[in-house]
């Protein structure tokens, strides 16, 4: 099977999972004690007539399986329903908020990869010397500390105490510098980075720590591999061995973990956007939950699950592309 066919195959495989996700979220939203209309109206008085009118408007007077099919029918056409609280289409609300979240998650990954891989390799090379010990302690702190608390501490140190960096909201690179009153693209770019720095580190630390641990273990194992011994026996320079023989193989598990950890990163973005007041998808999710805006909640859950599933598919394909041992097809 070629790469293209493998990609198509993996994407088709993802469809049943996403249908499953839609059933699950739909079931959860309808499992609530009391009907959705009462939840929507929480705290507000409403007469029987208003309730019935709302039920008819949202199709809630129909049996659950018909409602699900109607919802799915809309979903296929890109209609994710209507937000009761905001009186706007769910898809539009999500489209407006997805940018900051993607920017945050991707930059957290860039931070995590750029730090964890070199540190992990050095730790593996200098196994059991002070550098290794320090990096293992750092990694232990990284996996044991809640990301949102790291965010709070970063704000306390760099924004409240030192006043070096801003503590809230992002500057979007896709908006023009004039919107912010910046002097040209140089300053615009500088402000983007300044605003992104703290949330990026807060969200990326857990990823950095996990990846660093895996990188270290993988490099240690890889350096003990037969092919490395053979290369050494042939007198291949140590640098070339590190770069060509040990490094490449050791990256494969990293690729898988990057994909799977997207789940933690997307969940974590809810917390980080809450701490740093970022108007992204996570923040929208939080607000939708507080308002019990159930079509919006379902829409965001679907989108986040889709992002995760697509991320895993992309990393699977990258894996198959990089690993010379994998032939596409017998993927399971």
């Amino acid at each position, binding site marked *: 099977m070629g790469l293209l066919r493998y990609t198509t195959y993996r994407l088709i495989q993802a469809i049943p999972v996403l249908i*499953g996700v839609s059933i699950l979220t739909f079931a959860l939203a309808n499992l609530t004690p009391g009907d959705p209309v009462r939840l929507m109206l929480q705290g507000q008085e409403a007469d029987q007539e208003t309730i019935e009118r709302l039920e008819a408007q949202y199709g809630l007077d129909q049996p659950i399986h018909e409602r699900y099919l109607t919802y799915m029918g809309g979903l296929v056409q890109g209609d994710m329903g209507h937000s009761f609280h905001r009186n706007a289409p769910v898809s539009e609300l999500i489209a407006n908020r997805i940018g900051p979240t993607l920017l945050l998650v991707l930059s957290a990954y860039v931070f995590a990869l750029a730090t964890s891989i070199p540190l992990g390799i050095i730790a593996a090379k200098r196994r059991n010397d002070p550098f290794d010990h320090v990096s293992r302690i750092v990694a232990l702190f990284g*996996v044991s500390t*809640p990301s949102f608390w790291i965010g709070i501490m970063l704000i306390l140190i760099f924004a409240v105490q030192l006043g070096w960096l801003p503590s809230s909201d992002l500057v979007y690179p896709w908006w023009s510098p004039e919107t912010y009153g910046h002097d040209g693209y140089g300053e615009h770019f500088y402000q983007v980075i300044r605003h992104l720095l703290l949330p990026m580190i807060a969200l990326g630390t857990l990823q950095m720590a996990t990846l660093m641990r895996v990188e270290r273990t993988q490099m240690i194992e890889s350096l003990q591999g037969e092919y490395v011994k053979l290369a050494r026996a042939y007198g291949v320079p140590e640098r070339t061995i590190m770069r060509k023989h040990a490094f490449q193989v050791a990256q494969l598990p990293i690729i898988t973990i990057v994909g799977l950890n997207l789940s933690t990163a997307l*969940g974590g973005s809810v917390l980080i956007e809450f701490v740093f007041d970022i108007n992204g998808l996570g923040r929208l999710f939080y607000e939708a939950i507080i308002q019990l805006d159930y079509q919006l909640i379902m829409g965001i859950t679907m989108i986040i699950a889709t992002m995760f599933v697509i991320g895993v598919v992309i990393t699977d394909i990258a894996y198959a592309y990089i690993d010379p041992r994998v032939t596409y097809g017998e993927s399971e």
Partner: protein
Amino acid sequence: MAVGESQIGSGSEPAEKEVEPDTGWRNTARKIKQDTTARWGMYVIGFVLAITAYTLVDGNLSRLTFGTMSDFTFAEALPFFEHPERLPAPGEAETNQPPAFHADGSLSHPLGTDPNGRDYFTRIVYGAQVSVTVGIAATFLGLVGGTAVGAVAGYYGGWVDDALMRAVETVYAIPPLILIIVFTVFVSGGSPDVQFAIVGVGLAFVPVFARIIRSEVLSVREMDYIEAARAAGVKDRNIILRHVIPNSFAPVMVYATLQIGVTILIVAGLSFLGFGAQPPTPDWGEMLNTSHGYMHSNVWLSIWPGVAIMITIMGFNLFGDGLQDALDPRLED
């Protein structure tokens, strides 16, 4: 049955290092004792669990003594402690006091007081009650659910396996925090609390445990003693419960220990957003939520709950790492 218990599987696979369950566990325990990391993890976990047990007893004194001690808490009888939940009278409240080592602090409140004037040290200590019990209970629930699903899927194979694994994949596709929040809020009808959080977290962690158990079961299933039990006419249910699960359990234990840390991390996030324990119950995540509004006026409030969460999780991670090293022969030099 006698055949099943005698582990004849060992003879047929000379390549696998066969360990008898008993000596295996004893061996592991010995290795853990030798491993510095695991030992430190055990000290930290022991310390945290002791505090949790104490706060559980103190918090439920009235129930434990059939109502005779309803007005008494150890917290008020001990030095440095105060009542963890009760608000001080309006006139006497010393709000937002700094910790004792600060120039304006006093030893009567070692970590200062919160915006309501309650002793922060007491609330940090009593916060262990919710965080640790929820962490352990939810992990246990996920473990039980995951074991059931994974064992049945792995043992029967075929369409049962397919159906169960598709379901597991579906749950896995939603990031845990998102799934737990949606579950907690919807199932509680908009008023989340700890008991919903436990079930939600348990549900979200079924997939990870199911996958590990299933892959173990797939290899155990092929063992001769399972074949023998089947030939002897033992019912499937008994084979799964008495042979398959016990023999697949060791790697899951390591994972469960590490998972407790992850669970506490997630539960902290959940209550930080306000979907876990509700005030006035002392809970680390909830305290960080409150302190978020006082970041400029009282920085100390944001520090202590985070430190408590970090130490607790670190204990479980240290222990889990040590356990992994003890059980994984590949990393030995």
